[in-house]
């Protein structure tokens, strides 16, 4: 190519607006005006057509696949006759550069404004969008109606900020003077807030700051934003809350700083859990009241799917409730299960939304259940995706809720057994300090943590188009995690310095003096706040504290348990035979927790194989027990075999004298598990193998309600190999170095391949997973319960129906399933099918191969076991039939799969 002599070419430049696509009332119109000044208007600051803005803007809701957003640069080359030619054409004498602006796509994120080297871009509010309506029915209301009428999604994100913060006005903080002097906060003990512990019993996380980050998931945040926040937490000496998307393997060196969140979706491979700092149970969130987490399909890319153990590019909607905890008595059961899993020195927390009337009861229920901390999610909180109505509905004030929770816990004598974290709408150090004075041990700032990374609250988190790379994974490299983390650290330290100053001004020497001191008053117009904090000083001590509550057996440690059962423990452990141990539970000789502790003690002595005899409903069997095989004779209690990995479990009936104990399993058995195989020679109850990650589950008879709920798509092979032992002793510096090194490697491949190729390069890992398989034989007593395989994210469920029940299933089969398949033998009517699935009445060869293997294995396991006369009879008839004519059996199966595997297109939300 011959080079073009520049002086020969006439260059014409212009800035032009694109033509609006639509006119009429449904034309969305530009919410913001985007203007670029030229040199004539602002000499020295005019546009130089460098194209930085084109690169900067990523927002394009009407055409998400487009490479450009608000700005695009068009360059035309013409010859002397005005004909268009190719750029390299030597005839070119005329070049026209057009910078197109499409203001309709602008969301006011200001990336272009801040990146423009000339400051030539001005983004302002468009009066034509905003100046409509009247005071009562303003532009927001009208545009909301129009958006709905256009069929747009009502999902939005971040903090809506419909009202100004109630925390910013009408509060006064006390000050000390003369009578009790202020502290000089240049010295050590003046409001110091650097020696704190999250958790007050055995499990404690030592924190160096009272301002914590909040749960934001990997997936909702880009890799870089997540990493920046994680590193900031390590540097600040505070735990990192992961959100419900687990953490990326590159970040595993920091496991001991991370508190994993278990959301209602239960996403994650759930490995190496004892290396983390703890688990937070997410029960609610202010920004999406009563709703589960959401991740739009677009953001659920291959890498995210691997982490969450789900199929890629499906909308991920976690169910609204935490299905394993519907009521108060299930909370202690859940804690018991998690405690068995994690041990006593790991934190177990609960994230709850501040309810209108019964919040004291909720706080007390959580404390009595044994949680180590409660996170109060109050009004004005933010989120990465929620319906606009949920965000607009302002929750209760964070100071008020903190006060309510603190008082309730104090009355129960449990305040010093549980920490309170309060968050939601904390905008600055003053708010944070108010919350501590109201009784919180810690406060959370989530949204604030994102500002140093670039967040200007354009509220497009859910679209995956964040131009700053905070909530958009492909643009994540716009954030330098190292620099980003430093900025967060600076900001938080500055906030905490303020708080220390405020405490010093109150004459307080440390954080302890601040918590619950309530040295403030409210004198504004909010009646609830005024009545609580404006009228009179709050009593120093609450009356009639239930001081004995803290000695409840729920708070017993394993040391106490060993002491109480020392005879049973020593006589049982004396019976270890090589790597095997038989424990005779003898109905009630040992309770659930003690049995769990005993089995762990036995593992320490080298036991790998357990046989538990005469079990009657003991809970949490096997959870946290690192054994290869557990055989149970009798009835398995609630939450047994939860979280077990690579373990073989067999449950068979017991004969206790003349009594037969059926080999049934109660509620929540095998939840979140990944066993080698699990064979239960009886019925299982509700939520069997819910959140199962991988492994094979065989149930001789039927299952209860919501069996295989949220079954996953299997565990990536790399997770099975992961070992975090070496990181346990890493210093913070070593961890940061490792994190940065891992990131450099990632960035190098990203730069080499580009985002899409980089993501696609992990596709083989998706297919390398072994999804869980569950097969139910069915008993004569009952069929399968409702909601079979609800919300399944992969995996296979088979109902073999060996007893030939005519209509073996309940209602809402596979409702909300996003991947995987159910094979059901027997009649399934359309009205029984759940939402978003369809039934196929024939099987392919691969279906049959899969079924053949599973049926063979099923028969070989259960035909050998004496379950009961009737069942064994039916089973042998079935086996005979299958042996003689397998095709006939296959023909009686139907298959249920999700209808829509893809994502719905995201339309503008406004």
């Amino acid at each position, binding site marked *: 190519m011959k080079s073009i002599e520049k002086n020969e070419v006439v260059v014409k430049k212009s800035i032009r607006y694109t033509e609006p696509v639509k006119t009429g009332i449904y034309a969305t119109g530009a919410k913001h005006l985007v203007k670029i000044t030229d040199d004539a208007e602002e000499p020295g600051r005019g546009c130089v057509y460098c194209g930085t803005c084109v690169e900067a803007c990523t927002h394009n809701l009407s055409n998400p696949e487009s490479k450009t957003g608000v700005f695009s640069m068009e360059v035309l080359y013409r010859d002397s006759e005005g004909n268009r030619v190719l750029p390299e054409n030597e005839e070119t004498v005329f070049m026209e550069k057009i910078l197109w602006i499409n203001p309709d796509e602008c969301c006011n994120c200001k990336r272009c404004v801040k990146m423009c080297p000339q400051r030539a871009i001005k983004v302002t509010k468009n009066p034509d969008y905003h100046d409509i309506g009247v005071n009562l029915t303003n532009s927001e209301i009208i545009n909301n109606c129009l958006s709905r009428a256009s069929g747009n999604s009502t999902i939005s994100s971040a903090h809506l900020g419909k009202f100004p913060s109630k925390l910013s006005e009408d509060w006064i903080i006390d000050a*000390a003077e003369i*009578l*009790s*002097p202020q*502290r000089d906060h240049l010295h*050590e*003990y003046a409001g110091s807030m650097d*020696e704190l*512990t999250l958790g*007050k019993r055995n499990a*404690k996380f030592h924190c160096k700051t009272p301002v914590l980050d909040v749960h934001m998931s990997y997936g909702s945040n880009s890799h870089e934003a997540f990493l920046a926040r994680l590193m900031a937490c390590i540097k600040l000496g505070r735990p990192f809350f992961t959100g419900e998307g687990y953490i990326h393997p590159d970040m595993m060196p920091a496991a001991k700083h991370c508190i994993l969140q278990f959301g209602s979706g239960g996403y994650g491979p759930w490995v190496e859990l004892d290396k983390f700092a703890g688990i937070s149970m997410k029960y609610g969130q202010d920004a999406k009241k009563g709703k589960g987490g959401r991740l739009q399909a677009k953001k659920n890319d291959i890498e995210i799917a691997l982490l969450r153990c789900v199929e890629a590019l499906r909308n991920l909607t976690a169910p609204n409730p935490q299905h394993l905890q519907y009521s108060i008595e299930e909370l202690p059961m859940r804690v018991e299960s998690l405690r068995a899993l994690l041990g006593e020195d790991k934190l177990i927390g609960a994230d709850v939304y501040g309810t209108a009337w019964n919040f004291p009861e909720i706080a007390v229920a959580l404390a009595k259940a044994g949680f180590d901390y409660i996170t109060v999610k109050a009004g004005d909180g933010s989120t990465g995706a929620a319906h606009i109505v949920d965000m607009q509905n302002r929750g209760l004030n964070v100071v008020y809720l903190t006060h309510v929770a603190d008082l309730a816990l*104090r009355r129960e*004598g449990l*305040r*010093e*057994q549980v920490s309170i974290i309060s968050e939601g709408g904390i905008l600055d150090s003053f708010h944070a300090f108010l919350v501590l004075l109201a009784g919180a041990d810690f406060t959370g700032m989530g949204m604030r943590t994102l500002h140093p990374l670039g967040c200007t609250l354009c509220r497009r988190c859910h679209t995956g188009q964040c131009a700053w790379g905070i909530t958009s994974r492909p643009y994540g490299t716009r954030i330098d995690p190292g620099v980003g983390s430093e900025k967060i650290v600076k900001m938080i330290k500055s906030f905490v310095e303020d708080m220390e100053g405020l405490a010093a001004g*109150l*004459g*307080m*020497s*440390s954080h*302890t*003096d601040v*918590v*619950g*001191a*309530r*040295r403030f008053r409210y004198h504004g117009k909010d009646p609830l706040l005024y009545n609580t904090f404006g009228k*009179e000083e709050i009593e*120093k*001590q*609450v*009356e009639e*504290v239930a*001081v004995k509550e803290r000695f409840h057996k729920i708070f017993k440690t394993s040391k106490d348990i060993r002491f109480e059962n020392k005879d049973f423990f020593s006589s049982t452990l004396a019976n270890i035979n090589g790597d095997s141990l038989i424990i005779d539970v003898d109905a009630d000789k040992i309770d659930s927790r003690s049995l769990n502790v005993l089995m762990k003690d036995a593992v320490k002595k080298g036991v790998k194989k357990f046989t538990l005899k005469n079990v009657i409903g003991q809970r949490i069997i096997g959870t946290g027990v690192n054994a290869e095989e557990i055989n149970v004779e009798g009835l398995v209690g609630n939450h047994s075999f939860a979280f077990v990995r690579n373990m073989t479990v067999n449950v068979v009936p017991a004969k206790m004298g003349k009594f037969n104990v059926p080999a049934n399993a109660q509620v929540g058995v095998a939840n979140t598990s990944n066993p080698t195989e699990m064979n239960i020679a009886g019925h299982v109850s509700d939520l069997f193998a819910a959140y199962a990650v991988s492994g094979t589950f065989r149930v001789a008879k039927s299952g209860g309600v919501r069996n295989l709920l949220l079954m996953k798509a299997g565990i990536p092979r790399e997770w099975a190999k992961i070992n975090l032992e070496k990181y346990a002793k890493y210093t913070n510096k070593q961890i940061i170095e490792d994190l940065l090194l891992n990131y450099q490697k990632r960035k190098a491949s990203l730069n080499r391949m580009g985002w899409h190729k980089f993501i696609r390069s992990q596709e083989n890992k998706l297919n390398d997973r072994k999804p869980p398989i569950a097969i139910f034989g069915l008993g004569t007593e009952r069929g399968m319960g409702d909601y079979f395989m609800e919300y399944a994210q992969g995996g296979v469920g088979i109902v073999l129906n060996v007893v030939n029940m005519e209509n073996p299933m309940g209602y809402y089969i596979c409702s909300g399933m996003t991947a995987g398949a159910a094979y059901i033998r027997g009649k399934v009517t359309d009205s029984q099918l759940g939402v978003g699935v369809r039934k196929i009445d024939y099987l392919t060869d691969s279906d049959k191969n899969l079924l053949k293997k599973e049926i063979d294995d099923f028969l070989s396991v259960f035909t050998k076991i004496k379950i009961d006369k009737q069942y064994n009879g039916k089973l042998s008839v079935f086996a005979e039939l299958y042996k003689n004519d397998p095709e006939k059996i296959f023909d009686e199966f139907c298959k249920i799969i999700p209808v829509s595997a893809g994502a719905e297109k995201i339309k503008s939300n406004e």
Partner: protein
Amino acid sequence: MSTVTKYPGTEISEREFSGGDEGLSPGACGLLAAVGNFKLSALLKSAMCLQYRGRTGAGITLKGIYKDHNFYVFHVMYRDQYKVGELESVIESWGVHIVESHEMVPRRLYYEYDIPVIKKYFVAPPTIDEIRYRETIDSEYFYILKQVTKFNKKFIKDARIFSSSKENGTFLTAFELADTIKIYDIEQFENSDYEACLIHLRWPTSSGRGLWWGPQPISVGEIAGIHNGHLSSDKANAMALEQLGIYLHVGTDSEAIFLEVDYLLRNGYSILDIEWIISRKFPRELENMTEDDQKRFKELVSDPYLKKMKMSGPATSIVMSEDEILGFTDRDHLRSFSIGYNSNVAFMASEQRAIVSAAYFLQENLDDIYDPDAGKVVGFSVKNKKIKKLDYGWKRNEKY
């Protein structure tokens, strides 16, 4: 039990008695304590030099004056003479038996001072079986403690049981020390069998409870304490106690400190532990401690209850719990504190002046007079007028 008798003078207003809703404005106080073998008259005389530090309340606790019998001795003040009967029946409703009661103040003084009705009761506690029947407590002492606390809280506007020990007597007025001595005829005890004495001269500081509630020593059961200062940690201290089921009956920051020290002694914490819990260490001091000490320190201060017992803000406190008397200042030494002792007697006071003059009046040669280091706990125990200086490792009993 009681007959309504007419006292001269008008009844004291609720506001004056209880401080009303807002309480009295929160200052300075004078403290003097003596332990061992001493003469009360000489001590009282020396305390006069501290009068300038506080003139709206003076109180005295004398340890040992009621030792010769096994009854609890209540000193009770009533704001309204017509409520005496009603409130006495409240006390009797606890199942106690009032063996004897009499007025503590001569009638003629009612013409001179605005004073409430002040009576003394000799109280026999219920049997242990009866206590178990009424409450989930199986100790006579804690039963009485609980009832007194409840009574004082509930009737805060009308009455206060300001002394409820089997051994000690506490005497409070809202006037100067000389008035207190006169009103209660303290000189009558000159030849009694006392072995310790706390004297407090008050300038009200705490947002506590009025003229008649404010004076110290604050005493409940075998605990009595005097405090000079105002704690910024008062809410944290109160919450720690609340969560342990220990309630304030006066509600001041001072009381919380006294109850904390008593709790710690009862639960087998050593003097050193108590010092660490209440005063803490500067972070730089911590760095210079041995590894074992650091470990123990961390263990103590990371306990959520003990953590909240730290004393922040200006304070000099002298606390008597059973046979032990502990004195200390805050770690920053925002209030003065001196001690002086020999084998016979020990003094603790706000100022050396008071100690030296007490020694002079008593003609005692003290071995040592000095201001203890900031935040150091100094303790003495006394038994039959014999004193022992408590070393750092001393603890009352093994922790249970």
